[in-house]
């Protein structure tokens, strides 16, 4: 969930319950990321958009990293480090700590996550366009439990793209599907042909669209 931070930038609220004992506030990263942070450096405009996109899909990226239980996956926006995803466990995010700062300074974590984020967002936009949805959503949906931002939101549907090997019913997806149910929208999951969607997740979404260009190839 992205919110306005006291620094004037954006903050990502990704944990639930009590803060991890390993949690440390993260200072603003002082300088833009070095070009070596990207595997394939795109144009400056595209890069800027890409960084914002990483913020937009931070939860997705975090989920993928958390699946690998890899500390140090950085969350980046506007050239600044916002935090890092730690070994918070399957499908759960929330460790924002010094490891991420070190990792990003070394360029390792930032490189992977930015490249994944930009690639992920590009495939998401392509998928939305093919389904006749031209506008990328920035509006949050909410339930009494919290807020989440679906990838597409219209009067009749709420859609989430998951380019992953496994998709389960996380808190983010539960908020999206139940907000859709309350508002009478169709809740739609777009994922891979070979993606394993859990039973509870497949019951929570009204529709699942499977595509060969997403998920495990």
């Amino acid at each position, binding site marked *: 969930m992205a919110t306005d931070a006291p620094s004037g930038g954006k903050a990502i609220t990704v944990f*639930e319950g009590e803060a991890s004992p390993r949690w440390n506030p993260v200072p603003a990263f002082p300088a833009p990321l070095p070009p070596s942070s990207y595997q394939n450096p795109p144009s400056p405009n595209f890069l800027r958009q890409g960084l914002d996109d990483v913020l937009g899909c931070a939860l997705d990226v975090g989920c993928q990293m958390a699946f690998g239980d890899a500390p140090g996956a950085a969350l980046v926006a506007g050239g600044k480090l916002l935090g890092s995803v730690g070994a918070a*466990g*399957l*499908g*759960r995010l929330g460790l924002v700590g010094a490891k991420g700062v070190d990792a990003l300074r070394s360029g390792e974590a930032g490189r992977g996550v930015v490249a994944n984020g930009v690639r992920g967002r590009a495939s998401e936009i392509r998928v939305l366009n*093919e*389904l*006749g*949805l031209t506008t990328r959503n920035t509006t949050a949906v909410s*339930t*009494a*439990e*919290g807020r989440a931002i679906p990838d597409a939101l219209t009067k*009749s*549907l709420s859609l989430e793209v998951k380019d992953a090997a496994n998709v*389960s*019913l*996380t*808190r983010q997806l*539960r*908020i999206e*599907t*139940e*907000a859709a*149910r*309350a508002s*009478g*929208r*169709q809740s*739609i999951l777009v994922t891979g*042909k070979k993606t394993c969607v*859990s*039973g*509870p*997740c497949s*019951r*929570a979404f*009204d*529709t*699942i*669209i*499977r*595509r*060969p*260009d997403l998920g495990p190839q």
Partner: protein
Amino acid sequence: MIEAGLEFEGAIDRVVTAFADLPEPLRPVHFSHEEKLASDADRIDDQMRFAVFVAKSKSGFFLLGPGVTYSVRIATGKPLVCDCFLELTPEALEQFLKHMSKAKPVFGFACVPGERERRNRVTTRQGVNVIESWVGRDTKKYVPGFYWLTLLPDALAEQHGVPLSAVKAVAQEHVELEGGLHLSRFYERPEDWQETPAVTKLCASLPGVFDVEKVKLQLSAAKSFLDLNSMLRKWK
């Protein structure tokens, strides 16, 4: 694996109590926001901790135990839905529905996932997209269908003009439970559903019962995904 579905109106407390009071091996042990357990300390028998968890989990949660996963989904102004997945014997499932009937569900069923998909899921193709959708699950519009075990209250049957005599005539076993609830078993084992066309015919013959075949005909006319989506929305 057998799945069960239950729908309730009103108080979450009644439903949570019914789950917590289930006999073993049906009884869940832990609670979680995710499908997998976050902490062994999240135990349902820690009543204070569990009550706090339920109070803050306003969109739903999981209750977990060996061989059981209960997904409770909550949406404002809508019925509370429980998607239940049980790696237990058919006999245990019958016990499960009888026990949960004490929480006064609006509707309930148990069957293998294949039967659930046969009754309430449609698959369409548009280009590279394979689109799988649930249909006919809204009890405000219809009785969603009949399944291996079906828990049908008098009130829902009456609301949709479904004569209980027609249901009893097809069921292998029929039990009247407290609170005007009827538990019907339509075949011996849950996996027998493919060999028993009588239930499919029953769904098609009663106007107040959802019949997936009517939807399939309409969906074939959809020209785009958005077109399809608007049709599916009418058949929730």
